[in-house]
Every structure is written in structure tokens, then in C-alpha cells.
């Protein structure tokens, strides 16, 4: 078996008839961290949403293979159950649904093995400690009244508990204070050992802590340049203008 987790070939995506992704190729292998940096509106979140199966986006051409299978016909929840995880740039709130209950159900949905209540509690405590989240969050409603940084921590908590094969992290670093950034980075590094990670970010400060294997610069729906970690430093220093033809 190949260790290819994600394989995107010549992908074109439209929303409401407008083309947003204009030909992307990307292969992610087990253990690799790929970072995408790019201008606002260049299509980064769109790519993450399409990978997760958001119904509003139409794949006009190209293919997506996940764990060797074409996944175009997979529904969102089937992708989740197959080990895909998306950390949202803007996580919505679900009033009336308690975090603890939501986490338990999500874990049961997504993870294959049957996790006993005691074991789940242990994992939960452990992960919350790592993220320095107060236990009072468990009885609050999902993302309801959460600060920006709290929402991102909850996304990371979910990633740690759901143990995905492919983690799509859309600006997980935005809104985090300096200490939280360090905790989240630690969480990503631990989880990322044997999985594929696609990290969308605007800032080098996260990439100082989570070392990417590849960096892709995105402009107007395309990767205009790909390289190693040094590309991120260059983008940070020079911006995106120099990449435009």
C-alpha cells in the first residue's frame, strides 16, 4: 500500500458559477505537513471545504483521492468517519448542545473502536490539560459565546480526540494568544506524527513551532510556488506581489 493520504489532481472548483480553485495539484503522504499561505480570498478555505465535502462547492473538473479512493460521492459525514478532520476558520455555535456531550458523540461517530466511558474521560482530561482548557467548558454550549481563541482551542481538542488520518487546519492559529499558540502547536505536533496535515496560515510564527515539510503559496485559486520551509520565510519577508506574473 502506498503511504499517500491525499492526492489532488488538476482540481477546479466553482461556487455559484464562479471559479475559485483554478487547477490545483497536491499530494500529501503520511507524516507530512503541508502549509498553504496566500492572500485573502485566494481560495484556501474553499479548498479545505471542498476536501471535506461541502455541498455548496462544485468540482467542475479534476479529482480528489483520499486513501487511494476517489471521494467525490462521499457525503461530509462519511469523510469524517473515514478520518478526515477540518478545523474551521470560523466555527459556528450550536446553542443548547453541551461540549462534553458533543465530544462524546463525535468520538463515537468517527473512531472505529468502541471507546468505553472511562477511557474517553481519561483521554478527554488529558487533552484538556494539554490545551490548558478549564473543565467548565464541558458544560457550555458548543462555541456559544466562546472567544475567538477559545473556539480555536476547542477545534484542537476535537482534533486530539478524533485522531484523524488527515487534518485540515484552516487558520487555527488566528485569534490565539502567544501561550495558546504554543499549546496548540504542541498539540498539532503530537497528533501529526502518523497522519497527513494541511495547514492554512498567514503567519510564520506558527510555522516556527510546527515545522512544515512543504509550503505552497496560493494566489487566485492556484499554487504559484511550492517549496520547503524557507518559502514561508520569504513570503513573510516579501509578501505575495513578487510571485505574480
Amino acid at each position, binding site marked *: 500500500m502506498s503511504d499517500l493520504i491525499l492526492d489532488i489532481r488538476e482540481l477546479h472548483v466553482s461556487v455559484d458559477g464562479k471559479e475559485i480553485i483554478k487547477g490545483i495539484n497536491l499530494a500529501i503522504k503520511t507524516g507530512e505537513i503541508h502549509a498553504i499561505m496566500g492572500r485573502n480570498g485566494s481560495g484556501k478555505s474553499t479548498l479545505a471545504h471542498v476536501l*471535506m465535502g461541502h455541498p455548496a462547492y462544485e468540482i467542475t473538473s479534476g479529482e480528489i483521492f483520499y486513501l487511494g479512493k476517489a471521494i467525490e460521492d462521499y457525503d461530509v*459525514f462519511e469523510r469524517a*468517519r473515514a478520518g478526515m478532520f477540518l478545523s*474551521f476558520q470560523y466555527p459556528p455555535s450550536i*446553542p443548547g448542545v453541551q461540549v462534553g456531550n458533543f465530544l462524546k458523540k463525535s468520538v463515537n*461517530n*468517527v473512531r472505529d473502536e468502541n471507546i468505553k466511558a472511562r477511557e474517553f474521560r481519561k483521554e478527554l482530561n488529558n487533552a484538556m490539560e494539554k490545551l490548558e482548557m478549564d473543565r467548565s467548558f464541558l458544560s457550555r454550549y458548543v462555541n456559544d459565546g466562546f472567544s475567538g481563541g477559545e473556539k480555536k482551542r476547542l477545534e484542537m481538542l476535537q482534533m486530539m480526540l478524533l485522531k484523524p488520518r488527515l487534518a485540515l487546519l484552516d487558520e487555527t492559529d488566528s485569534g490565539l494568544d502567544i501561550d495558546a499558540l504554543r499549546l496548540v502547536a504542541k498539540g498539532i505536533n503530537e497528533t501529526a506524527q502518523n497522519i497527513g496535515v494541511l495547514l492554512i496560515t498567514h503567519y510564520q510564527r506558527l510555522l516556527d513551532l510546527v515545522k512544515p515539510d512543504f509550503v505552497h503559496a496560493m494566489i487566485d485559486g492556484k499554487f504559484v510556488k511550492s517549496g520547503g520551509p524557507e518559502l514561508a520565510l520569504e513570503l513573510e519577508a516579501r509578501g505575495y506581489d513578487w510571485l505574480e506574473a
Partner: protein
Amino acid sequence: MSEDANNAVGDYKYGFHDPENATIRFDKGLTEQVVRDISELKNEPEWMTEIRVKAYHHFMDRPMPNWGNCSMLDSIDFDNVTYFLRSSEQTEKNWDDVPDDIKNTFDRLGIPEAEQKWLGGVTAQYESEAVYHSIREDLEEQGVIFLDMDSGLKEYPELVKKYFCTVVPYADNKFSALNTAVWSGGSFIYVPKGVHVEMPVQAYFRINAKNMGQFERTLIIADEGSSIHYVEGCTAPTYSTDSLHSAVVELIAMDGAKIRYSTVQNWSANVYNLVTKRGIAHKNAVVEWVDGNIGSKLTMKYPAVILKGEGAHAEIISVAYAGEGQHQDAGAKVHHLASNTTSNILSKSISKNGGRSSYRGLLKVNPKAHGCRSKVVCDALMLDADSRSDTYPTMEVSNSSADLEHEASVSKISGDQLFYLMSRGFSEEEAMGLIVNGFFEPFTRELPMEYAVELNKLLELEMEGAIG
């Protein structure tokens, strides 16, 4: 239970029925003689017969309400209703003495089990009368009276006479008149001064027969500084013809007393549920209605509180779920008669598959009631474009010192929420179930845990097949 019955049940899991083994069944239809016969059969005091007959005439003379769902109301066939049906010769204190068919029903509904685990007392009504009744000894020793209404009238006629029809006069509306004329069963509760009934007491109402009319009557008196939590549940078999449930509930909270009355109404979709519920709160007393309406064809119910004594408080939390062919016309009424009285009303409704839910509210503040505060919040959630939700709030405020807040919202399930939950492995139906349960959570959390779990399951079941 027959196979046919099983098949007819569909998604409604309480839709099964037992054979109808009536020991006494009145002919269908309502006449003065029927009313007198019910009273005679029960060996009632003269004054009760008189009030029944007066109520009967008022019912006959009074036109149907000209508001609400008039076409549904007009389709009630009062001549095709059985007004009294006795299925067991007496009210038993021991489940083993209850006739097998009936006992099985309550077993299936989980009542004896719940009683053992967490209830202070149980009354189980089957058709027109209570078939089982019991109260924990320690409550009895403290002087708490918890009886079915018929026994209440026999054993405590003065107490009943003193309060009967004082909160809801028979002429209050057409259906309170009907109930007063033919009432049977229901609960009678008296909590002595200063006694706190810690465990909830429960009444369970079951209609089994076709075209049955159930008219229970409940009267709860909480004496000074006492408290009680009363829970009622109700279900019926699924038939193709309609049944009628028309109850009256009267609550009296004396100075400093607290009554909470919780309902999870889950009638089958062929039941008309037309109920008058009202409480009086005296000085510093609290009356709380926690009212959930899931089933029935048409529900018209507006739990009310009259804040009669200074510092009294009313809390009305209600939810309604209207599915295909259902109309939940629910709401709340509060009348601030005294100064410094406060009220909170929270109403939540969900409409699906063409179902219709209406909120009808009335808030009154008397000219002499100073410093009153009230907050009303109405939230409606629409699951599709065919469904309907309306709000009819009425405010009659004649005192400028009143502090009133009113918020209303109508929302849909957002695509963002669905996508988020589905990305956590919930199917679309499961995601909707979760959002719907979350929407009702402010209500569910007020219920005893066992009820909350049951209600959540019920709603999740309702979401199945929600996706076209």
C-alpha cells in the same frame, strides 16, 4: 396487541392499543342525562351535580371560539365521542391488582419502574378513571393528600367545594364548560403548610378506546410555604378516527408556596387536546408551568398564572413541536394583579413537514400593580418552507411603572451548523436532531432527567426521514 394495530402505529411508539374491556361504557353523545348519569354513578354530592348541569348548558349555548384553527375545531364531532368509560372497578394501590391488559400498558410506558426509582407518588388514569394510585408513606405521614379527583371529592368534599372552579370558572371558555360538565379522574393534591415534597409526583394519562373523550380535572393546593412538583405525561393509540382530551387544571399557591407543573404531552396525531390550565399565586408564591407539546392533532393550551399577591412570580416555559398535519396553538398568559410581581415566559416551537405552531400570549398589568417586571421570549425554528409559525402577543398594560421586555425570533437551521456537525461524523438527520434538541434544551433541562432523555430520543426519532 394485534398485528394490525402494530402496523398502524408507524413512528409513534406509543400508538399500540389494548382490547377494550369496558365494565361501563356510556353511549356516544352528550345530553343532560349523560351528565347526570356520570354524577349519579359516582355518587356525588348535590352541589357537584348542579354545577355539572350548569356547565353542560353553558357548553351547549356557547359558540366555538372564532379564533385559532377554526376549521380543525369545527371538525370535532361531539356526537361521536364516548364521554365516560370505566375499565376497572376500582383504583388499586398495588400494580399486581390492576387488570393485566392495563398493567401491561403502563409497564410498556415504564411507569411502575419510574415510580420505584424517583417518584413520590403515582396516579395512572386509563380512559375516564384512575386505575392505580399510590403515594409514599412518608408523604402521607406529613399530611400530604394525593388522590385521584373522584376520591378527593369523596374524602375531602369541603376542601374540593371550597376551591373547585375558583381558578377556572366553568364559564371561562367552551371547553372548560365541557370539562366541568363531564369531568372524571385527574388529581387532587393538598400540601400542608411548610411541607416540601422533594420527589416529583406523577400522573399518567392514557386513552385506549376509539373515539374516547378524556376529561380529567386536577386541583392542586399548596398551603403556605409549601412546595410540590407535579409531572404529567400522556399518550394514546393511533387510530384513524379522532379522540378528544379536554382537561382543566387549577393550581393554588398560598403565601410563599411553590408549585411546579410539568407536562410532556405526547398524544397520538388523532387527538384533539384542548386544555385550560391556570394557577393563582398569592403573596410571594411561585407558580411554574413547564409545558411540552409534542403530539396531538390540534392542541390549544395557554397555561396561565394570576399573580394575586405582592411579590408573586410566574414562570412559563413551553415548547411545541408541530409535524405533518399538526397544529400546536400554545402560549402563555400572565395577569399581574399585585405590585412587585414578576413573570418570565419562554416559548420555543419547531415546525416541520407542513406543521403549524402558533404562540398566543397575553400579558396584563393592572393599573394598581406597581413595579411589575415581565420578560417574554418567543423563538421559532422552521425546518422547511412548507411549515408555518405565527406569533400573537397581546399586552394590556395599564401601569407605567411596569418593566417589560419582549423578544421574538424565527430561524432556520443554518447550513453552517449542519456542515460543522456533519464534519464531526453526524449524518444529516443526526445533525438536525442535535440542533433541534439543542433548541429545546432550555425546556428539557427543567425536566426530571428521565423525561429529558426520553424527550431527546423522541425528537431524534422525529428527525428521521426529515431529509427529502
